[in-house]
């Protein structure tokens, strides 16, 4: 019998970051690593700290919107092996592969967490910033599929977790109607937003009025 959960808890992630902090302290004490968490980990944190109810439970990783130096990536790998967790438990793929940092960084407020370290500065994206990024992901899929046409293409492109996270954030931010949704500030162009409005109404995520 085990009390292990399928995905890591916030405390288990904090434990892994603590190990990384000690690793940095031993091998590269001048380094101050900025971790700017977006996605699942940041939502888990808001789920714990606020009234946000996350409809998709758990995350397998911490996505940071900062660059991880190679020396840190190596430490992350070693810690993954030592703890029998995925090697991407801390990764910068959204920074490295998706240009999200360049596009969204100016519109994200980074909030401190209760987890403090000597060599790691951990912050999480604010809910409005996360919603902006989630809208980008969902709207990209809707636009690519040409919603409401091509439902099979849409199913293949639309990550279910992005939809559930978006609904969690809409509810938390009190976005209940089309007017609320259209009033949500979009400082960057989100192609496919009109399709999302239609999708949200069709799926009952927001009311017409």
């Amino acid at each position, binding site marked *: 019998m085990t009390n292990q959960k*399928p995905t890591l808890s916030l405390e288990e992630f904090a434990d892994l970051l603590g190990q990384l902090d000690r690793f940095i302290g031993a091998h590269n004490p001048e380094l101050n690593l900025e971790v700017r968490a977006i996605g699942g980990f940041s939502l888990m944190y808001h789920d714990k700290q606020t009234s946000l109810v996350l409809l*998709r439970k*758990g995350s397998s990783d911490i996505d940071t919107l900062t660059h991880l130096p190679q020396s840190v990536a190596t430490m992350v790998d070693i810690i993954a092996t030592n703890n*029998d967790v995925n090697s991407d438990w801390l990764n910068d793929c959204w920074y490295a592969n998706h240009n999200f940092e360049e596009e969204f960084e100016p519109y994200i407020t980074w909030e401190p967490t209760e987890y403090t370290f000597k060599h790691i500065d951990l912050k999480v994206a604010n809910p409005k910033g996360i919603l902006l990024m989630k809208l980008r992901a969902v709207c990209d899929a809707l636009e690519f599929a040409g919603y409401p046409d091509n439902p099979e293409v849409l*199913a293949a492109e639309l990550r279910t977790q992005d939809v559930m996270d978006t609904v969690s954030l809409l509810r938390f931010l009190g976005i209940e109607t089309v007017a609320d949704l259209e009033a949500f500030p979009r400082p960057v162009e989100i192609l496919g937003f009109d399709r999302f409005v239609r999708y949200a109404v069709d799926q009952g995520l927001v009311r017409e009025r």
Partner: protein
Amino acid sequence: MAKRIPPHYLDQHGWGPDEFNSLNAYLNRLFLYESDPEKSRVIAQMDPSRMSRETIALIGAILTQYGKRQAVQEKYPNLRYAGLTVPLEIPLYLNEQPLDLFPAYRELNIHY
């Protein structure tokens, strides 16, 4: 941190919607990025006979939802006869008040 059991083999006794939801999140990521070598290795080593019906149905729902079931079953022979399209007899709830947005989940009697 104690040695971790692969989530798809965990004892599910006493689990509720939150735990199955978390398992779904894990499996979703595993199969969505199955071309990643580490994830591919985990999938290739999966033994469906050690998994619950709920776990198998979740895998089936994920693969069907993303239109990947046939391709994944061709790539991983160990999943060919796992019963990925067999609906659950007892409904599985991933949220207490499910939205039921995804047809492939509904078809397998999973309410997300």
